[in-house]
């Protein structure tokens, strides 16, 4: 690879993303771009999202036009400063395209990154592990303890699709399907937070994870908090994303609506409440939710959890006044437009560790992925 030339690659968002289509470039060839700047809108079969530049520099080339579709990792553009000549860039692009064709063939030959199943605490637990990409024969290098991501009520490990790959650049990251969800067993015991936290510890034991950094969304946040209070020595940091467990109020209509909706149009009205930008509720997102809800045992599991955690539209477990007992760093990340768990609940966390992001709803980790990734990265690296 040539000195000073950086490829802007087609990102991979989520398990099922194999390719993406350029919807719109928000910058032009020749523009100076900076890391974190929104530069291009990309559509996948699941969702449309804005790609934020990973590096700063001059965007010398745009190699994919609006409407073009390419596999993940493909070159969308080139960042290089003016000291690099056009000829060098042309030669680089030619070389890259050759190598990329080989890489794509190799990736297709190799099994795609697949979730795995582990038996833990009497249940099958599905999880997805990602770590820093390493060349063949080299050892995996990662910083500190692994990261464990816990989704919310009715979600699954795919909810972290915009976060897990970014965190996995520096850390080993596990995303877990909690009991009753995704590909894990549908047995949810009493359907309370304690059942979930026991399952998390059983999962860590089964995989030999002595200590992890926890990030939990919504219900998963309450689980993270419960685990951290019960097993403080095994938790490096806790990130609570639009978290349950910090106050009694919760949008009970959303919860019962989600459990009871059987038709696409009913579910759509419910799911829209999750986002600030309701257009993010796509046909595929609804299809995936409907497919999950139709599986044997899911309806019973959801009903049991609804009763066990949120009976009468209130949170059964509130741990807000025990935050001070935690010995590890804790932060709260919230979407300012969260319609499920009141943003005021973030106030249980000291102001310095409280981050409320504008323009995002309950699924802040999808809607403001880059900001959330930066905040998660910071607490993990600093503790």
């Amino acid at each position: 690879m040539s000195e000073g030339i950086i490829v802007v690659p087609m990102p991979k968002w989520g398990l099922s993303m194999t390719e993406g289509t350029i919807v719109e470039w928000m910058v032009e060839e020749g523009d100076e771009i900076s890391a974190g700047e929104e530069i291009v809108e990309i559509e996948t079969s699941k969702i449309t999202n804005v790609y934020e530049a990973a590096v700063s520099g001059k965007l010398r080339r745009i190699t994919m036009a609006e409407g073009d579709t390419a596999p993940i990792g493909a070159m969308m553009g080139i960042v290089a400063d003016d000291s690099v000549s056009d000829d060098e860039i042309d030669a680089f692009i030619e070389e890259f395209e050759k190598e990329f064709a080989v890489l794509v063939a190799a990736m297709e030959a190799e099994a795609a990154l697949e979730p795995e199943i582990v038996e833990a605490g009497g249940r099958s637990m599905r999880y997805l592990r990602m770590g820093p990409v390493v060349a063949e024969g080299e050892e995996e290098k990662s910083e500190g303890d692994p990261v464990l991501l816990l989704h919310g009520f009715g979600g699954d490990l795919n909810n972290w699709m915009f976060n897990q790959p970014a965190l996995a650049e520096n850390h080993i990251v596990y995303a877990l399907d909690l009991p009753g969800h995704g590909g894990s067993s549908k047995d949810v015991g009493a359907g309370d937070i304690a059942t979930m936290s026991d399952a998390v510890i059983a999962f860590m034991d089964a995989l030999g994870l002595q200590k992890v950094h926890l990030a939990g969304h919504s219900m998963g946040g309450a689980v993270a908090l419960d685990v951290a209070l019960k097993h403080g020595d095994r938790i490096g940091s806790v990130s609570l994303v639009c978290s349950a467990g910090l106050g009694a109020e919760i949008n009970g209509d959303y919860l019962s609506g989600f459990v009871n909706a059987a038709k696409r149009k009913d579910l759509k009205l419910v799911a829209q409440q999750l986002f600030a930008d309701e257009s993010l509720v796509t046909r595929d997102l609804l299809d995936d939710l409907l497919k999950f809800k139709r599986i044997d045992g899911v309806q019973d599991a959801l009903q049991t959890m609804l009763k066990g955690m949120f009976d009468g539209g209130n949170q059964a477990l509130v741990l807000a006044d025990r935050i001070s007992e935690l010995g590890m760093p804790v932060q709260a990340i919230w979407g300012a437009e969260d319609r499920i768990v009141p943003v005021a609940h973030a106030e249980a966390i000291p102001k310095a560790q409280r981050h409320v992001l504008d323009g995002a709803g309950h699924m802040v980790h999808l809607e403001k992925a880059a900001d959330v990734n930066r905040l998660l990265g910071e607490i993990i690296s600093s503790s």
Partner: protein
Amino acid sequence: MSIKSYREAVNEAIVQEMRRDETVIIMGEDVKGGMGGSAGVDEAWGGVLGVTKGLVAEFGHDRVLDTPITESGFIGAAAGAAATGLRPVAELMFADFVGVCFDQIFNQAGKFRYMFGGKAVTPLTIRTMYGAGMRAASQHSQCLYPIFTHMPGLKVVLPSSAYEAKGLLIQAIRDDDPVVFFEHKMLYDTTEEVPDEPYTIPFGEANVTREGDDVTIVAFGRMVRFANKVADKLEAEGIGCTVVDPRTTSPLDGDTIIECVEDTGRLVVVDEASPRCNMATDISALVSANAFRALKAPIKMVTPPHTPVPFAPEIEDLYVPSPEKIEAAVREVVGYS
């Protein structure tokens, strides 16, 4: 979740229900090995197209029954078994053979609940192959689902893909009323992601497989694939098609169809059944009676001609509604003024 064929999806639905509920049995011509086979080749076939292969090994000869070539006998036996406590899944090899056992289906199984004042239930599933395209000639290629749809007391299911097939068949087996489950021969080798766990898709709930603003296409069974293909092609040209797969013709989700036509103002119905008194005429009547003011163009029906299914391959291909014919119909209603 893994990629499975329509054939594998049907097989998996039966296997999982037989494991879950020991009253589920299967019966039919050659469902295990073929009556004509010599000893020891019980598993040679698993049905003419191999859908029930492997079942006898797991569930034994008491729950996987090869029957004589006597639809009048074994379909009647299945109806009786259902009324007296079992949950039979009977295979009527080709829907075309219904002529000899129709009394057992519509006068007996379909009417038990009504005639016995609700005191009897008949949890019978009849799986049957249908449809043209296999070069199987006019007695093995028909789409007879309108005949069953006509009969109160029967539920009629037309799965259009592997995912649909598994969920709808499990629903059918668990249903307490007689269900006729139509498997299109030309879909058996189509594949898609299908969950490994059992799941159910409710009856009477249409699936909107594409969303567009200009035309509603209502299609059944194999025709849903064709309609999706046309919708994807025309989307690139700026013609938006909503595709509705009703999944079940009885019960029928008329509300979804009417709502979609109210949004698009135009309707194309694609039905592989003979054109008189078929689902296309039924849907057309439903829409013209309930969404007349929304219509911006005459309703267009894409069906075969009113003839037997031809045997000559070239003529059979002309007979079946094709993506090209559907596309032409969409263009015609969009261009109407």
